[in-house]
């Protein structure tokens, strides 16, 4: 039987919170009670065992991942900067989409008319057909997460490559692409994609978007051999997908 008062003293001793007087009292008690002594020794070993544990070490790119996942634009707004109102912006987008849809429909109708009316006579064809360098699909990533669906395709042609995003998300999604020195961000297409929050650094490009998204991010490699790139998708700060990919196929 161990007195509760001494169990508390033992614990406080293990936490180095005991006075010399209490320490002496505890020692006397342990000397006269083998059960308490055994209990104390076990507690001591259990506490010491925790000290044996080595500090876990995070992966080397954790710092970079943390920095890339933060939207540093939040406090970086310059005072006096004229902001385009959300209403005007949404109007522009609506007009852009209406115009694009009309244009596409026109092209489609024109193509159908031309195809049905034209007749190819092989005898009248001469010359050569030149093929430009083909696109190579490096990755095709289906997105099927809670509140985020669609797919991402990574394509390469020569020293240029594209990350095509076709997605729908109910909540804001961060697309973060980290890359080595041998890669440069070129541009984002289409222009309407500018309504998304785009930020680029020396070694990363980040887009924050929500709703229906259809855009392409273009990069160029300045070297034949390029270190791996890193794509990460976050939803409300939580990573839903991450992958490393290489351009050296």
């Amino acid at each position, binding site marked *: 039987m161990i007195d509760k008062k001494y169990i508390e003293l033992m614990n406080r001793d293990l936490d180095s919170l005991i006075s010399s007087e209490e320490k002496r009292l505890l020692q006397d008690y342990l000397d006269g009670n083998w059960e308490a002594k055994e209990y104390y020794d076990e507690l001591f070993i259990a*506490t010491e065992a925790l000290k044996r544990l080595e500090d876990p070490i995070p992966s080397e790119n954790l710092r970079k991942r943390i920095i890339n*996942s*933060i939207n540093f634009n939040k406090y970086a707004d310059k005072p006096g900067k004229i902001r385009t109102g959300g209403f005007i912006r949404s109007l522009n987008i609506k007009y852009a989409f209406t115009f694009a849809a009309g244009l596409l429909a026109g092209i489609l109708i024109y193509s159908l008319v031309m195809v049905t009316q034209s007749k190819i006579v092989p005898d009248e064809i001469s010359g050569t057909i030149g093929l430009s360098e083909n696109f190579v699909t490096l990755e095709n990533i289906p997105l099927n997460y809670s509140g985020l669906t669609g797919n991402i395709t990574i394509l390469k042609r020569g020293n240029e490559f594209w990350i095509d995003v076709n997605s729908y998300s109910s909540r804001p999604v961060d697309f973060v692409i980290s890359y080595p020195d041998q890669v440069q961000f070129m541009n984002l297409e289409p222009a309407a994609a500018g309504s998304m929050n785009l930020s680029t650094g020396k070694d990363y490009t980040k887009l924050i978007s929500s709703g229906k998204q259809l855009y392409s991010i273009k990069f160029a490699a300045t070297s034949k051999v390029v270190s791996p790139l890193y794509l990460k998708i976050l939803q409300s700060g939580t990573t839903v997908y991450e992958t490393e990919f290489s351009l050296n196929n």
Partner: protein
Amino acid sequence: MDKDDKDLVKESLQGSQKSFEEIVDRYYKTIYRLAYRILHDDDNAEEITQIVFVKAYESLGSFNPKFKFFSWLYRIAVNETLNLSKKLSYTEKLNEEYSSAAENPDEIYARSELGEKIEIALMELDILYRVPLVFKHFMDYSYKEISELLGVPEKTIKSRLFTGRQILKEVLIKNKIFQK
């Protein structure tokens, strides 16, 4: 001379990315270790570390400079870790893992190093006891500091620490990490 955390926070709020990066440099390894000790999982610990800094940055304006910055940061870390732990039903999963280990403990534990065995034993503790133990033994927090951090009376923290230690001792014996 190193800048004070509060100065770095102030500069971050004025738009200095460099200042917040310095905050990240100061604390990301500690936050990672804390999350790892509670969750015992590399990926989740890294995930938590990332979320903590994103959330800290997003709510930097709500930080009250009257308090210590790292305590504020640790509180976010603890909340996020506990949320994830609940979400993953971590305890349940580990209990399952342990029941399989209990079928053949000699074989399981022969494969792992002592440190790993102790970590596994620590994970058998309910999170209620594990968190105060982690703060006491790995972060060197006082009863009062743990109590403030977790928003639980000091007396309760003390009791959880004692009970946690008692359970840990029993688990170590049960898992034959040390003999009775």
